[in-house]
């Protein structure tokens, strides 16, 4: 009884973690399923078919590649733009700071459906053809804010004396940036990029409004849900999950060795989400 009382919170914590992983377990288990009928919703029999033939269903792999392409381009653009904004916010004085802050905060407080709808309204009014360009443009827009929040926190957390020390040690402004500022902010930028990519890759609502006939991976899943999601989708999603987990755990492991050096006890992605 005493033991239970002492460890109650630990038990609850573990149960919550288990709860978080139940759907993941289902997704992975069903990737080895050979479903009876077209809906892959309940277990029938073990099969490796989906894993040995990942592209076995028309459209699944092309939508997957489309999502990766959009994710890479949108992440690159948003990371660049967002990092520039962060430097301006932390390092420069300018007029209209509160408007700027509001414009960065609002996209994070706006329901996706509103952002999706409003962009569609704009594109329709401009008579712009919907497709990969409009989706990428939309993704850059909603990722920027997350990048700004992450990189800004990193910049603000940096000891200003480090840059002063560099100046004192004969580094001209360019060298200060190259040898001190940039290496120290880089983990924040990489974290922001990782977060940005995962947001873009997984986005459905905004993409769906602005995709026209373009099919991204989430849009493919949405469409397939009506007539049964192919097992390959489960396999691909499991793959993405495992790769992402490996990247983050790997980063953790590296981070563990560098963590003390950078005085950041939290994984960057967590840091990002918890600050937004």
């Amino acid at each position, binding site marked *: 009884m005493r033991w239970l009382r002492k460890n109650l919170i630990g038990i609850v914590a573990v149960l919550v973690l288990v709860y978080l992983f139940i759907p993941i377990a289902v997704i992975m288990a069903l990737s080895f399923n050979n479903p009876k009928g077209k809906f892959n919703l309940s277990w029938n029999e073990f099969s490796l078919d989906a894993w040995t033939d990942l592209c076995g269903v028309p459209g699944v792999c092309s939508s997957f590649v489309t999502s990766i392409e959009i994710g890479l381009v949108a992440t690159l653009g948003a990371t660049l733009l967002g990092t520039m904004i962060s430097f301006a916010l932390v*390092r420069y004085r300018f007029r209209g700071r509160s408007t700027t802050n509001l414009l960065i905060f609002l996209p994070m407080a706006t329901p996706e*459906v509103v952002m999706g709808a409003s962009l569609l309204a704009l594109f329709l009014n401009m008579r712009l053809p919907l497709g990969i360009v409009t989706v990428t443009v939309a993704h850059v827009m909603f990722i920027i804010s997350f990048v700004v929040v992450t990189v800004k926190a990193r910049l603000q957390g940096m000891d200003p004396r480090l840059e002063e020390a560099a100046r004192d040690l004969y580094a001209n402004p360019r060298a200060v940036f190259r040898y001190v500022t940039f290496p120290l902010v880089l983990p924040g930028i990489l974290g922001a990029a990782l977060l940005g990519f995962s947001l873009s890759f997984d986005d459905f609502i905004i993409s769906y409004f602005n995709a026209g006939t373009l099919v991204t991976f989430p849009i493919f899943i949405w469409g397939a849900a009506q007539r049964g999601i192919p097992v390959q989708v489960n396999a691909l999603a499991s793959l993405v999950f495992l790769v992402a987990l490996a990247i983050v755990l790997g980063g953790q492991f590296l981070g563990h060795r560098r963590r003390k050096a950078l005085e950041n006890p939290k994984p960057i992605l967590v840091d990002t989400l918890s600050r937004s």
Partner: protein
Amino acid sequence: MAAAVPQAGGQAPPASVVQRKSRTGYVLLFPGMAWLAVFFAIPLVTLFATSLQSPIEGRTGRYKPGLEIGNYASALSEYWPQFLRSFLYAGVATVLALAIAYPLAYFIAFRAGKWRSLMLVLVIAPSFASFLLRTYAWKTILADEGPITSTLNALHLLPDGRILNTWIAVIAGLTYNFLPFMILPLYAALEKIDPRLIEAASDLYASPQTAFRKVTWPLSMPGVVAGTLLTFIPAAGDYINAELLGSPKNRMIGNEIQTNFIEYRDYPTASALSFILMTIILVMVFTYIRRAGTEDLV
């Protein structure tokens, strides 16, 4: 926004961040802010303009500019149940998520020791699997013949005899999907609390319950506020959970915006609905932040 003010000859951090005043600042700011202006702010204006348009007779999906304020009245009178339902579902899901997330965040912040980083990774890891698929997986978990439904049915706890395609499934989905957004800010706030404060409280005759009520909970307030907002806002606008896990009786406002926009091509109604949703959410957010007294959240 803690702007760094240079301390006059101060001892501690001297002139922490020297903010320069130069054109470079504007150059850095411009491209990103222009992007946000063109693809976030202007679309909202367009959306507003669209919400006032009136139909062109005999041509579906074609509208002419106007000042049709009546769009708002008709949208509200037709869809007020969905608004109500959205905020109700999102509210319940937020409260549930808070109750589920707090113990985990508390444990990670105070008791996890060397497992802390691993547990944090585990909290975000589920987000790496597709949002749609995770929601879809709940269809399997909550299926009518599944263990959960049968157990609850055996106990006569389910009013409709099932979970799937009812409001219970929709709220369960919302709670699950936005849980990480609750856990992480809570953790961030709890982690900042010096455990000695809790020890000090118990040293000063506070029982564990009182210590929690008077010390831990108030100090974790910034996390509670951030977490509830980060859960409530996307939950209120969501339509995936209602679509995949609910029945037509559980449609939320997101469903109606999507359907009006994409299927009916009734852009003015969809725009009016979006605008009402956004306004309500923003008003709620700002009142909430103000009342919770954490205005530095933004």
